[in-house]
Structures are given as structure tokens and as C-alpha cells.
């Protein structure tokens, strides 16, 4: 005897967690604002850099002038228009944020997930590779690699890719540890008992349950990457002038924070806004999977 009638009576609509999360995310005003600001900065920066590509390399005689109609963000000690610099620099940091977060999410999560879920030899091999990347000081690798890149003019994209390539290891370790713990949970066994494939267990059960760890650390990694970039520039290893990043401008402006504060506060403020956007977006993605929020939003 069959338990179910051929045509079941209609019930509530059921969607996958990922669609639920997408729906939740689209209702998250904070996260949407974060994305909006992020995109606006990106567009403005792109437009400005296209309309006025020489803005940051044209020397003027306005040395260290405060903000004015002509120079909305003021000028630097050497007479460069700070707004052009800030927007061009923001572009560099946005590229880093996007590339590093994508690489951390995709490579970091995939490697951690595979190592943690399947264990065994695969785990050992993957984790030894990660160890190797973690053990060799990041700076050493960067110094060697960026020398190679710098000779090509320190392309912003190349620097972002380089930092991204070296930033996913931390997340992969955390995701692996989280997966090791999660795969022992009874609901995972329940799903396997039902016949779920490894792909399904990982994407439907483990990742949604590890999303907090993944998102928090991705945002931290992005913030760290932006800082790392400014450190590199400071050491002359990252991008080289006339290319510019917000980190570079902050370093330059630091000394004159009291005498000509705009040189410090504009790039620092913009940097802060970008990092905050990253945090808010990450927070939204995490909250989108959280049942408690689902209730609250209703």
C-alpha cells in the first residue's frame, strides 16, 4: 500500500536553502546599501579614471592646498589632485577586495571542504601544500614575486591576484576544521542514509552550516589584504607610482595629518568606507542563512 496519494494535496512552497538565502539577502537593507556604495565608488572611480586619466600624474603649482572647487579633496604636498588619486587608488583597493574575496571563497572553501570532508590522503596532501604556503613568510614570497611583477610596471590586477593567491590558505584551514566537526553531526549521517551524494552533503548541509566561519574570515582576509597592499607599497614592493592605492595615500598623508588633514582623512575615510562595505556584505551573506533572522524578517 502506498503512503501517498498520486496527487498530493497542495502544501507550502518549498525552495532550496540557497534560494531562501538569496531571498533573505535581497531583503537585507544593510547589505544592499553596502553593495550599492561599493558599486557607486567603483563606477565613479572608473568614470573619473577614464575621463581624466592623467589627473594623478599632472603636477600643478597648488602645493598642499585645502579642498576647493577646483580640487574637491585638496592637493598633496607635491601638488597632485587628491581626488584623482583617491579614486584611482580606490579602484586598486576595490579590485583587491573583489579578487581576494573571490579567491578566498572559491579556493579556500573548496580546498578546506574537500580536505575536511573526504579526509585521508587527499586531506594530507592538500594540508601540506597549505602548510608550505603558510610557513614561508608571506612577505618573502611577495618580495620575490612582486619583483617579477614590478618589472612589468606593478600592474594592479597582477598584485591583486598575487595577494589573492596567498590569502586563501587561512580560510581553507578554518573551513577544514569546521567540516571535520560538522561531518560528525548526526544530520550529516541522516542525509547520507537517505542516499545524498558528497556534493549534496557539502553544498546543502556543510557549507550552509559553516557559512558564519567562511564569511567572517573572508571579510577579515579582505581587510587584511588591503592592509597588506599598503604595506607592500610602503616597502616599494607593491604597485609603483604613478599607480596608486588608498593605502599608499594614507601612508603619505599620515605625516601631514595635523598640518593638512585632508591629505590623510580623504584617503583614510574612503578606505574605511570600502572595508565597512565588505564587512556589511559579508555579514548579510551570513545572516541570510541564519534561521533566527528568517523569523525576524517576516
Amino acid at each position, binding site marked *: 500500500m502506498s503512503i501517498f496519494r498520486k496527487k498530493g494535496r497542495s502544501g507550502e512552497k*518549498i*525552495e532550496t536553502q540557497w534560494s531562501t538565502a538569496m531571498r533573505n539577502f535581497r531583503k537585507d537593507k544593510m547589505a544592499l546599501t553596502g553593495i550599492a556604495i561599493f558599486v557607486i565608488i567603483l563606477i565613479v572611480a572608473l568614470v573619473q579614471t577614464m575621463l581624466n586619466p592623467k589627473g594623478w600624474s599632472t603636477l600643478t603649482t597648488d602645493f598642499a592646498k585645502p579642498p576647493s572647487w577646483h580640487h574637491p579633496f585638496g592637493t598633496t604636498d607635491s601638488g597632485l589632485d587628491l581626488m584623482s588619486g583617491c579614486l584611482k587608488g580606490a579602484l586598486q583597493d576595490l579590485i583587491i577586495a573583489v579578487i581576494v574575496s573571490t579567491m578566498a571563497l572559491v579556493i579556500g572553501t573548496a580546498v578546506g571542504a574537500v580536505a575536511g570532508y573526504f579526509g585521508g590522503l587527499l586531506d594530507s596532501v592538500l594540508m601540506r601544500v597549505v602548510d608550505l604556503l603558510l610557513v614561508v613568510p608571506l612577505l618573502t614570497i611577495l618580495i620575490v614575486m612582486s619583483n617579477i611583477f614590478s618589472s612589468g610596471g606593478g600592474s594592479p590586477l597582477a598584485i591583486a591576484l598575487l595577494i589573492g593567491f596567498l590569502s586563501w590558505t587561512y580560510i581553507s584551514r578554518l573551513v577544514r576544521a569546521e567540516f571535520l566537526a560538522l561531518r560528525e553531526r548526526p544530520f550529516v549521517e541522516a542525509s547520507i542514509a537517505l542516499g545524498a*551524494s558528497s556534493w549534496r552533503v557539502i553544498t546543502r548541509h556543510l557549507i550552509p552550516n559553516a557559512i558564519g566561519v567562511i564569511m567572517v574570515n573572508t571579510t577579515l582576509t579582505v581587510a587584511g589584504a588591503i592592509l597588506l597592499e599598503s604595506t607592500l607599497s610602503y616597502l616599494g614592493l607593491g604597485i609603483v607610482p604613478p599607480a596608486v592605492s588608498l593605502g599608499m595615500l594614507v601612508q603619505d598623508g599620515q605625516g601631514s595629518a595635523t598640518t593638512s588633514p585632508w591629505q590623510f582623512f580623504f584617503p583614510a575615510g574612503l578606505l574605511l568606507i570600502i572595508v565597512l562595505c565588505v564587512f556589511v556584505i559579508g555579514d548579510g551573506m551570513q545572516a541570510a542563512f541564519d534561521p533566527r533572522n528568517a523569523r525576524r524578517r517576516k
Partner: protein
Amino acid sequence: MATDSTDTTRSPVLSVRDLVVHFQKKSSLPFAKPTSVVHAVCGSSFDLFPGETLGLVGESGCGKTTTGRAMLQLAEPTSGSIKFDGQELVGLSRKEMGEIRQNLQIVFQDPFGSLDPKMTVGQSIAEPLAIHGRWTDEEGPGLVAEAMRHVGLDPKFASRFPNEFSGGQRQRIGIARALILNPKVLILDEPVSALDVSVQAGVINLLADLQEKFGIAYLMIAHDLSVVRHVSDRVAVMYLGRIVEIADKVDLYSAPQHPYTQALLSAAPLADPKAERQRKRIILEGDVPSPTNPPSGCRFRTRCPKAQDICANEIPDLIDRGQNHAVACHFPEAMKII
């Protein structure tokens, strides 16, 4: 090996022979040999017939859960055979096993841990359909709603998360999830032991109703004889990885033959205070030995009041003593306890 399989009138839906499950306890040091082997299940045999309930009873750690998990290939059998509807399950590929899983499902002991906290109740109950490609947007929601009604849950709760439900309700969700594929056999791993006493009866009655309606066979695991007493047709008693006695319920409770079964029964509380005072008690000495180093011969010999020399040297086979009452003891003797 002789078992109750001598019953030739019906053919079993699930047939287990000489099942052995060992766990290697891995040393934490690399390159070291595995230090010890846990003999979780050691040569169990039993049959489960369509539509019946077989109770599987034993103390904590005797291998009940491992037996249940082995049925679904969640624990890999070291040796032995598990046949479902005549088809051998041991050694099946993941894909071939997938087909079987639609007919062979499990409800877990822990109602709090066995539901994904990030999935709605509806998503959890619908998962088996999705896994087996039986989900359609037209019919799926209706099937989920119907499964929820069958277990006494209001379908409008489908969009809620498990943390909003009590233990009893969660166990009902777990049952609905196992039920939606329309299985022939359900393994129930202590389905009520984690629940408040007040809601246990409700879940047990629900299971009995579902069995009556749909003719599902249950392998009902429990850690004492009182829970399975009301719902089982037959009962198997397990001690340290082996089945020591298996019989029809009435036989087992009225005339237990294995000293361990007798001891378990004598320890079970009775409802009638007068009978409780008068009945004899068999107090077992010592603890259950470790499954990493089980005793030779009869595994119960370290605690058995009737143990003789032969018990240390020869493993007693599970032998049918008539009326499908099988006992694994060198000196079986029917004894009225209650």
C-alpha cells in the same frame, strides 16, 4: 548457523547472517599500527519479516546502533551478509545502494542532532524526494504536507526551523522524512529514549499506527525490555556484539532461556507492586567487559551465574530450541521471571 530462519512460511524482507563490524581505533601517531580493534558487532544473525516489529535490546555499547547503521552501509560490515528482499547489500556500490535506500530507512536516536538546523522542516522532509529525483514542484509540496499530516504535524509549519520544535515534534519530523519515500523497512534507533516520558507514548503509538496503515517492518532498537514489550512481535537480546536470544515476544517474556535475558527481565520494574515484591531478582556482578577485548567463548561468561569451563572455550551458537525460540547458551533453561 541455525537461527529462526527455519520459519519457511514467510520470506524475510531483511535477512542478516553472521554480521561482523569491527572499528579500527587509529593511533594518533602517524605510521603507527592501529592499536586496538573495537569488536562492536560479532556474528549477529536475524531475520525481519514484512510488516512485523523486531525489538533489538541490549545495554549501552553492546552494538545496537552499529547493527542498525550497518543495514544502511553507514558502518562498513567487516564480514557477513545483509540481504534486503533477497538482494545482498554488503559490497554494493553507492549507486546501487541508493535504490535500496528508498525502501530501507532509519530514524535516529537524537532528534535534536539529526535535523539540519539550517534547513526548514519542509526542506528536511523533502530532501529524500530531491535526492532520489522524485521531487517535482507540482507534487512535492503536497507530498510533504501529507507526510506531515501522517505524523501528526500541521503542514503550515513546513517553513519553520527545527529549533522551534520540541523533541517529540522533531522526532515526528524525522519519522516523516523517513516515511516520505514509502519504505518497506524502518530502522528505529531508540526513537524515544531521548524524549520526555510524557511524549514517549505518543511517538510509540504513532509508530504503531503507521505500521498498521502502511505495513512497514520495524527493527526497533531499545536499551531495555520494557519499551519494546508493547510494540514488538519478536525480540532479540544483544550482549557485547552478539545476539544471545531471539524469540516471539510472548515466549521471550514468559519463558526466557538465556541467563542474560533472565537477568534483564528480573531488573525491569513491574507495574504491579505485589508482583514486584514477590518476584526473584538476578543481580549481575561486574561490568560489561570492553568490546576492544571481549572474553573468549561465551561473552557473557564473566558475569554469568551458570558459567562452566566449556563457556570459556566454546562460543555457544544461536540454536533454535523450537517455536522459533533461538538461544546462544550451553545451558539454556526456561525460567519464569514475570
